[in-house]
């Protein structure tokens, strides 16, 4: 079927392809193993996966275990020590209601922590190249030695001008309301905040679970607190206060934990109820994106106008499925580096972003553009460590405009921990959420390493890869 005339022409093309893709040592080696691997194993973000990709969490899960321990221990003590007395003295409905609340809290907590918050998969090399081309045409800049200016696109939504920022890590223009979480190194749709207490980002897909979690936890905390107090009071009516405390020491512990938790959890629930009713994210609220202070014409274009619809949309709207397909198998591509005979085929369905195999044939088929195309991505990636630190990120807030409850602040992790100055301070200790993670150099370092792995996966020119290796060793 192939005419003889096409043969030598094809050989020329393929020999060019082979030099580029042989440069990253990992990809041919990986290809042999790739056939059996699932996509979560090569996921580029900083996430942890369990149960063969079914469970997805952030990298730092220590605080999540603390949350779990606090809830389990407090509830366990309540059921073990207070409920027997109360069930007999007052009504057996108390442990039943407590049990239902506890079940609900655990279910929603695990759902929030284990599900995909709405991570946007990174752009395939072709998409990234296409976007780069469009941006360069728009900017009118050639591939100079400097990093091009920040890239934004403007779109008018419901009468408001919204700026879409370009994410240098994910190589996409972020959809409206999406944001890049620097802790998880992912762009997340409708990004609310990164919650260390649930060990995950809170975004479009798990916001309702998060809200139901804090709401039910508020009820559970108030419930336990109220009935522990009741228990102690009832006992002290019989045996005196100090004896009552001696008889059920667990009640003291529970009361202390609940007392400190109530303020923060109830405050947080109230705050999120406000956010839901105005259809804003924590991120937007902190930045004051839609506040009147920015201008009289500034309003929230996503709000449906009335509170009921906003609430229903946030809590009962459809849940979009996960876009990252963690448990899918990586499609093996044709071994394009060393197989000139096979050709640039089997291209279509690959999703493996660790595979630059897909892009090089495309780029190579445009020989006139080769010299321009490849160094460009290299330069972009070289710029990425700086870019992720300084570009395309929300400006740190200097004030807390809408928050009345000070304890509410402590739950939110800002997106850029590198700026220590604006971090929320922790008023108290363990029971109320401190919400701080140590930041700074570990993350910047891992940014660089992460960029490195991206670069090798992108299978850039050999020199670019060597350059990045030198960069990481600094």
């Amino acid at each position, binding site marked *: *079927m*192939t*005419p003889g*005339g*096409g043969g030598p*022409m094809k050989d020329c*093309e393929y020999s060019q392809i082979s030099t580029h893709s042989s440069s990253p040592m990992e990809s041919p080696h990986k290809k042999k193993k790739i056939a059996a691997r699932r996509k979560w194993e090569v996921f580029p973000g900083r996430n942890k996966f369990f149960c063969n990709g079914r469970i997805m969490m952030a990298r730092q899960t220590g605080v999540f275990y603390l949350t779990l321990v606090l809830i389990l221990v407090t509830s366990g003590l309540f059921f073990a020590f207070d409920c027997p007395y109360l069930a007999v003295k007052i009504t057996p409905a108390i442990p039943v209601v407590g049990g239902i609340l506890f*079940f*609900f809290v655990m*279910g*929603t907590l695990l*759902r929030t922590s284990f599900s995909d918050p709405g991570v*946007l*998969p990174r*752009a*395939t090399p*072709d*998409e990234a190249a*296409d976007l780069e081309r469009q941006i360069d045409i728009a900017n009118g800049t050639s591939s100079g030695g400097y990093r091009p200016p920040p890239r934004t696109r403007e*779109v*008018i*939504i*419901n009468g408001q001008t*919204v700026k*879409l920022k370009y994410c240098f890590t994910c190589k*996409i223009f972020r*959809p*409206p*309301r999406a944001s890049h979480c620097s802790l998880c190194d992912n762009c997340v*749709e*409708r990004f609310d905040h990164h919650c260390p207490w649930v060990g995950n980002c809170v975004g479009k897909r798990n916001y*309702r679970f998060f809200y*139901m979690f804090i709401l039910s936890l508020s009820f559970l905390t108030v419930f336990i607190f109220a009935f522990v107090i009741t228990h102690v009071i009832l006992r002290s009516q019989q045996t005196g206060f100090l004896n009552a405390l001696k008889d059920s020491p667990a009640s003291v512990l529970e009361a202390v934990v609940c007392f400190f938790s109530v303020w923060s959890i109830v405050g947080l629930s109230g705050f999120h109820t406000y956010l839901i009713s105005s259809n804003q994210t924590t991120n937007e609220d902190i930045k004051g994106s839609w506040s009147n202070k920015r201008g009289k014409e500034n309003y929230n274009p*996503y709000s449906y106008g009335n509170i009921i*619809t906003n609430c*229903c*949309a946030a*809590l*009962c*709207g*459809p*849940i*979009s*499925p996960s*876009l*990252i397909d963690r448990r899918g198998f990586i499609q093996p591509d044709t071994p394009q580096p060393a197989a000139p005979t096979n*050709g*640039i*085929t*089997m*291209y*279509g*369905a690959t*999703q493996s972003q660790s595979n630059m195999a897909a892009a090089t*044939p*495309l780029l190579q*088929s*445009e*020989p006139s*553009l080769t010299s321009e195309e490849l160094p460009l991505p290299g330069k972009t990636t070289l710029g990425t460590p700086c870019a992720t630190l300084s570009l395309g990120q929300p400006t740190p807030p200097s004030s807390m405009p809408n928050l009345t409850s000070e304890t509410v602040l402590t739950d939110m992790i800002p997106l850029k921990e590198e700026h220590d100055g604006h971090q929320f301070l922790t008023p108290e200790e363990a029971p109320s959420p401190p919400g701080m993670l140590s930041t700074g150099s570990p993350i910047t370092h891992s940014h660089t390493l992460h960029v490195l792995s991206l670069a090798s996966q992108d299978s850039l020119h050999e020199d670019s890869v060597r350059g990045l290796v030198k960069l990481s060793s600094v």
Partner: protein
Amino acid sequence: MATEKPCLLIEFVVSLEGHNLQELRRSASLATKVFVQRDYSDGTICQFQTKFPPELDSRIERQLFEETVKTLNNFYAEAEKIGGSSYLEGCLACATAYFIFLCMETHYEKVLKKISRYIQEQNEKIFAPRGLLLTDPVERGMRVIEISIYEDRCSSGSASSGSSSSSGSSSGGGGGAGGR
């Protein structure tokens, strides 16, 4: 060369009747890809731009393409519709502490399956005979509709060596013979 193009296109159609689009990929070489981006003018709902990409000018009729994109947009609107049935699903899920999602498929997932069937069908009937291939947006994170443009191998000697984009005049001849 010109005489070989019709025979290749017939091979395209023949291979598709074996419902194997892989054969299309094997028998043709990929020339370029076009990306149809998301249209955010109505907010965050999933919609794609219906603007006709210039690279497809010689390959497919404008109206066919726009109709495909509009149908896809309608499917996505149906998936994301907030109304009685979605409220019911949401409340039921909430009442069961979301454990029901372990056994039940959401409305959105059902519509996504419909969409992938539709795209498969469109590929077989409309796009592949013209040497194009649509990729389901869900495989690209719902960011783009990726349209792969394939060149015939016979014409690749003349087309791919010189032309960068497939809408160049050299490939226009190949596309023209096939598309009309």
